[in-house]
C-alpha cells in the first residue's frame, strides 16, 4: 500500500471511529412519554398507582417488545399535587426542556388541568391524553391531538341510563355530584337523555368533593324517593360515606357510579352498604385472569421482583395507555413518520389493537373510545363482577 493510500484509509477510518458514536447516539435517541400525575395531595393514591402502571408499561415495551422502532421509550414523571397551577407549571417545564422530536406524548391529570392546557396543546400539535374523561376533550375539530382513552363521562351516563331503562322503564333518578368540573361534566347530558328515555330526574344534589357527614345528602334523597341514584365527581372521597349513610337511613334506591368509583377500595370502605353498587368500567381488573395482559403483567412484575398483589384500576388504565401509545409509535416508526403528527395519524387508526385484552380495542370515535362494561359490587366476593358485555355507546 502506498503511503498516500494508507493515509487516505487511515483518515476515513479515523473519521468513522470518531463519528460513529455520534451517529449511533442519534439513532438511539429515545422517544419520550411525559406524565403529569397527582403523586402527592388528596389523590396521591390514584396518581401513584397510575405512575406504577406507566412504569410497568414502559418497561414492558423496552424489555419485552424491544422498544419503539429500535428506540428506547423513556418515561418522564412529574407531580401535579392535583393542582391546576402546579400541573400547568410541570407541563411548561417538560415541553420547554424536551426536544419536540423526542417528546411525542403527554398524559395529564384532571379535567381542570386538561381543559386549561387544551388550547396550548392544540397549538403545539402535541398528542395528549389525561386521567379525565371530560366530554369537551373528545373534540377532534377543536383539539385534534387530544385523545380520551375511554368513554367520556357522557358515554358513561348513557350506559348507566340504558341499564336503568332495562331494570325499570319509567325510573325516578337522582343525580348526586361534586361541585367540580369533573362532577358537573355529564350532568346536562344525563338530564336531557333521561328525559328522552322517559325517565324522571326527581332530585339533584350538589356537594363539595369531600365532606365528613352525608346525613343531609341522604335525607334529601329520602325525601325525593328515587329508584336510582347516580354519583359523579368523587374519587372514593365521598361514595363510601354516602352508601353507608343511605343504608343506615333506610334508603332503598340502587346506587350507581362511573369509572372512578369502580375501585375495590370502595367495597372495603363502604362494607355491606356497597352491595349492588353498579359502575361503568372499561379496562380489565387485576383479578380478570382470563385476560392475557393480566397474566403477562403478573409474570413481568414477578420477574422484576415487583409486588404482584392486587393492582388498582388506575394502574390498569395507565398500562393500557402506555401500551397503546407505544404501539402507535411503533406503527408511526414503521411508516417512517415517528413524529407528533405521525403519532396522531396512527392513534386514529389503531382500532385493531387492544393491549392484550386490557380494553375492547382502541377504536377511537371522535377521539374517545365509546365502549364500556357495567360491573356490580359483590361484598361477598369483595370485588366488582361484570353484569354486561361491552356496550357500544356511539
Amino acid at each position, binding site marked *: 500500500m502506498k503511503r498516500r493510500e494508507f493515509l487516505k484509509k487511515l483518515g476515513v477510518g479515523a473519521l468513522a471511529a470518531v463519528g460513529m458514536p455520534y451517529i449511533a447516539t442519534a439513532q438511539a435517541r429515545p422517544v419520550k412519554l411525559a406524565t403529569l400525575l397527582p*403523586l*402527592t*395531595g*388528596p*389523590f*396521591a*393514591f390514584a*396518581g*401513584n*398507582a397510575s405512575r406504577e402502571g406507566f412504569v410497568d408499561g414502559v418497561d414492558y415495551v423496552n424489555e419485552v417488545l424491544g422498544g419503539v422502532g429500535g428506540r428506547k421509550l423513556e418515561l418522564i414523571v412529574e407531580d401535579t399535587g392535583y393542582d391546576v397551577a402546579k400541573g400547568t407549571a410541570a407541563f411548561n417545564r417538560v415541553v420547554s426542556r424536551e426536544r419536540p422530536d423526542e417528546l411525542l406524548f403527554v398524559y395529564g391529570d384532571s379535567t381542570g388541568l386538561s381543559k386549561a392546557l387544551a388550547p396550548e396543546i392544540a397549538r403545539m400539535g402535541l398528542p395528549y391524553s389525561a386521567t379525565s374523561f371530560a366530554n369537551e376533550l373528545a373534540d377532534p375539530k377543536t383539539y385534534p391531538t387530544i385523545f380520551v382513552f375511554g368513554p367520556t363521562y357522557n358515554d358513561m351516563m348513557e350506559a348507566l341510563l340504558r341499564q336503568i331503562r332495562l331494570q325499570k322503564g319509567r325510573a325516578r333518578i337522582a343525580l348526586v355530584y361534586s*361541585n367540580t368540573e369533573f362532577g358537573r361534566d355529564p350532568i346536562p347530558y344525563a338530564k336531557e337523555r333521561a328525559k328522552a328515555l322517559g325517565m324522571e330526574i326527581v332530585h*339533584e*344534589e*350538589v*356537594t*363539595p368533593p*369531600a365532606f*365528613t*357527614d352525608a*346525613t*343531609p*345528602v341522604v*335525607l*334529601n334523597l329520602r*325525601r325525593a324517593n328515587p329508584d336510582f341514584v347516580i354519583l359523579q365527581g368523587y374519587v*372514593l*372521597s*365521598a361514595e*363510601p*360515606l354516602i352508601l*353507608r*349513610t343511605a343504608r*343506615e*337511613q*333506610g334508603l332503598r334506591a340502587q346506587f350507581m357510579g362511573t369509572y372512578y368509583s369502580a375501585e375495590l*377500595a370502595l367495597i*372495603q*370502605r363502604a362494607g355491606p352498604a356497597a352491595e349492588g353498587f353498579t359502575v361503568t368500567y372499561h379496562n380489565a381488573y387485576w383479578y380478570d385472569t382470563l385476560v392475557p395482559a393480566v397474566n403477562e403483567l403478573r409474570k413481568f412484575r414477578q420477574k422484576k421482583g415487583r409486588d404482584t398483589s392486587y393492582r*388498582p384500576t388506575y394502574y390498569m388504565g395507565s398500562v393500557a395507555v402506555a401500551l397503546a401509545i407505544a404501539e402507535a409509535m411503533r406503527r408511526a416508526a414503521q411508516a417512517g413518520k415517528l413524529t407528533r403528527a405521525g403519532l396522531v395519524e396512527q392513534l386514529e387508526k389503531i382500532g385493531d389493537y387492544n393491549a392484550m385484552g386490557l380494553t375492547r380495542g382502541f377504536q377511537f370515535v371522535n377521539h374517545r373510545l365509546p365502549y364500556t362494561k357495567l360491573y356490580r359490587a359483590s361484598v361477598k366476593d369483595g370485588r366488582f363482577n361484570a353484569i354486561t358485555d361491552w356496550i357500544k355507546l356511539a
Partner: protein
Amino acid sequence: MPDLLPYLIGGLANGALYGLLALGFVLVYRATSVVNFAIGEFLLVGAYLTYTFALFLPLPLAILAALPLAFLFGLLVERGFVRPLLGRSVVAVIMATIGLAAALDGVVQLLWGPDLKYLSGSLPNLGFQAGGIFVSSRAVWNLLLALPLGLGLLFALRRSRYGILVRAISEREVAALALGIPTARILAGVWGISALLATLAGALLAAASGVGPNLVFLGLKVFPVAILGGLDSVGGALLAGLILGVLEALSQRYLEPLLPGFTEALPFVVVLLVLLVRPYGLLGERQIERA
C-alpha cells in the same frame, strides 16, 4: 319539625367533629398566639396512628393507644419547630407551620404509602331509632366525645392549676417566666393536647370513611370555626363548630336547590357576616386598642 330534626341531629354531630378539631387549634392560639396551619396534618397523623394500632387492636383500644403517641407527637412539634422560633415574628412561626404541614404530608405518604386504607373494626354501635328518626352511631360518638371533652377543657382552663398557668402565660409570658412558671413545659403540653384532640377527630373520621391523604381537607374547616367562635375562646370553638355544622346541614336542605354549591362557601359567608358585627367572634375576648 319532625322533618327538620334529623338534619339538626346530623348537623350537630358533624359540628361536634369540627368543634373537636377547632378546640386544639384555639388552645394553641390562646396559649402561644401561633396560628397552626398544620392542624389538618395533625388530624392526618392521628388518623394514620389509629389505623396502625387498629391493625392488631380493636378500634376503641387502637384509639386509646394512639392518643399518648399523638401527645408525644405534639410535644415533638413544639420542641422541633415552635420553640426554636420563640421571640421571632409571628410571620416566621406561621411560615414554619405551613412548612410543617407540607413536610408532614410527605412523611405520612412515605411512612404509610399513598394507598387508601380502611379500618377493619368499628366503634361499638350506639345508633338508635327514636320517634321515627334514626340517629347514627357516628353521630352519637361524635357528640359523646366532643361535648364532654370541650366542656371539660373549658372547665380545666378556668379552674385547674394547669389551666390557670396556661392562661397566665397567654396573658403575659415574660411575667409568667419571672414568677417561675415553667412556660416551656406547659406550652409543650398545650401542643400535645392539641395533637391529641386532632387525633380523636381523625379517628372518628377514619372510622366513618377510612383513612387517606384527603382527610387533611377537614383542616380547612377549622379556620372558619375558630374565627367564628373567637380565636382565643375554647368555648367559642365548640359553639361555632356546632353552629356551622347545623347551618351546613340546613343549607344542604334548603339553599342548595336554589344556589348549587353554596354550602361549600357557607362557613366563610357566615364568618364574614358575624365579623362585621362582632370582629372578635362570638365568644372571643374583646380587645380595645387606643392610639
